[in-house]
């Protein structure tokens, strides 16, 4: 299985393994080959941000960069988007024609950078960028999750929230609230009118512990989210697009140093369900080539054996179940520019493997 670039290249995995650097290197390599590329990233370390010419003020905006560091300028600029939840919400509000979505207090708190909606918003942003069109390739550096598959659960979350079981609740909210211009006393009116006795009971419990003001805010938030549901649900479209034939590459990034051999191998089965065409395991920071040049004794031998056995367990264990294993060597330099350059070279080699 070769590594011909595909419209979507998704990088996922837990943080701290060089996922962002590896994704950046992939984007740089594809752009250097003359492709029109968008790199979407969420939380690069400051020095990588500097290198990409990004400042925090540009969060949420697509920034074209003509060249990367001192590499030759790209034929077409590389677009970089530092994802920002508030900006995504803003765009959703505009596209759905529901300005209240970006003004709602509760939605605002949840959309803070650490408010916890990153995965969902990343999917939606990806969809919006895709719709805007014009890219040969979108490289997505997904938010790091405590578990490997967190990003992919974004789809399930949207589905569950707008599940048929809620349609009734939302529809009821929609009819009673949207049509009859919402004003004060909303919660009281609504609670009284709910058809579903279960919902009424739930809200009355809620009111008992939070007070009526929160219930009102809460219902308004739900109502606003429901009215803007189109903007959420279209994120689900990504699932179809991502799983279409030859549409995407999925790279599970791990590192030898991270030593999460068991976890990486355990994901194979789950990954197959999400990316039927297979997931590449990108193993970063491999020491093997250097270690093999070293024949120490005593403590040195112990150190070597410890490093080597972890690396081999990962590389060997992953031979089955993954679409391929891509090893990237550890780069012994403190400069992020050199890192990206060396890893971009690694991508080039893997393309020819």
């Amino acid at each position, binding site marked *: 299985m070769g590594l011909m670039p595909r419209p979507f290249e998704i990088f996922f995995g*837990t*943080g*701290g*393994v060089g996922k962002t650097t590896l994704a950046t290197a992939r984007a740089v390599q594809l752009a250097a080959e003359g492709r029109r590329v968008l790199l979407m990233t969420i939380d690069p*370390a*400051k*020095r990588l941000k500097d290198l990409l010419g990004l400042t925090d003020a540009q969060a949420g905006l697509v920034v074209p960069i003509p060249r990367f560091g001192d590499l030759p300028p790209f034929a077409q600029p590389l677009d970089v988007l530092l994802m920002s939840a508030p900006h995504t919400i803003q765009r959703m509000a505009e596209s759905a024609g529901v300005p209240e979505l970006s003004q709602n*207090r*509760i939605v605002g708190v*949840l959309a803070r950078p*650490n*408010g*916890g*909606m*990153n995965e*969902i918003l990343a999917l939606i942003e990806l969809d919006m960028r895709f719709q805007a069109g014009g890219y040969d390739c979108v490289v997505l550096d997904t*938010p*790091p*999750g*405590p578990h490997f598959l967190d990003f992919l*659960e974004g789809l*399930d*979350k949207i589905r*569950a*929230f707008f*599940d048929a079981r*809620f349609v009734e609740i939302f529809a009821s909210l929609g009819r009673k609230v949207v049509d009859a211009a919402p004003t004060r006393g909303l919660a009281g009116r609504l609670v009284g009118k709910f058809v579903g006795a*279960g919902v009424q009971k*739930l809200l009355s*419990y809620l009111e008992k*512990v*939070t*007070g009526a*003001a*929160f219930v009102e*805010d809460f219902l308004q938030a739900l109502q606003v989210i429901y009215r803007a549901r189109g903007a959420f649900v279209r994120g689900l479209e990504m699932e179809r697009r991502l799983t279409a034939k030859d549409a995407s590459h999925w790279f599970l990034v*791990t*590192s030898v*140093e*991270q*030593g*999460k051999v068991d*976890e990486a191998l*355990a994901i194979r089965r789950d990954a197959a369900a999400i990316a039927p065409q297979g997931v590449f395991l990108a193993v970063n920071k491999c*020491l093997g080539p250097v*270690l093999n040049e*070293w024949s*120490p004794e*005593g*403590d*040195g031998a*112990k*150190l070597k*054996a*410890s490093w080597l056995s972890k690396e081999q367990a990962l590389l060997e264990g992953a031979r089955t179940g993954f679409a391929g294993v891509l090893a990237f060597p*550890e780069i*012994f*330099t*403190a400069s992020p520019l050199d*890192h990206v350059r060396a890893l971009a070279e690694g991508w080039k080699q893997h393309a020819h493997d």
Partner: protein
Amino acid sequence: MIASPQRLYIITGKGGVGKTVVSLAFTRWLRQQGHDATHVTFGHHRLQDSSAPTRENPLAAWADVPRWALDLEESAEGYISKRIGSVLAAKWIVRTAFFRALVNMMPGFSYVIFLGRLLQAMQDQPQRVMVLDAPASGHALAMLEATANFREIFGAGAVYEDTQKMISKLYDPAYTGVRILALPTQMAMQEATELREAVAQIAPFDARIFLNQSLEPWRVALEGAPLALRAKLEMEREVRARAGDIPAIPFSAATDPEELWRDLSPAVAGLV
């Protein structure tokens, strides 16, 4: 027994920096000092429709310390039943599709539930020290911020009062310590520093950085190694020079639990 440690230690850092091993070793060390310490993890932060089995970390058994894996459903139920005074109603609420979807849509909410349950247990057992093997950086921030976020969302009422109470403990540097682990590279160190700054934005936490998997003790062993490997040592040295006096935990090449413990126990004492 060492003098008054904090009650709650939040061990965080980027994925793969060794949070689990270090937090387990630290728990074991606290117990050896005579403290009633428990190792805590948060289970899956989604309410499952069916109970999916959670994978047991193969490392968890070696430390031989009490471990508590909080369950979201149990935690939510416990809190709600206390608040509304009915176990039955709490069970029903937690099982409604509506509640599930809400919690799943807002991971921050699940952190508040977990932390609420944890702090409640700590109040019930005033001697206990909890070592939380916390989620990685970005998620740790989400976790630490969540309580303040939800206090703001609730605005008033009994739940607001409860989050206020949680905050008075969680954000109290005498009560809670945040320990950020970083690998000894410039990039990792910078990320750890950024995390510490972000944490300080939330509240005046006692947040300290530790270099994990330090190669310094292996200096002699690495003397004849290829230049590239020795560069790892030099990188670590530069990190230390730049970051000042950062305590370190050595890299362990241990092949059995007791050896691992011998390697780590002197260093994890510094986490207190």
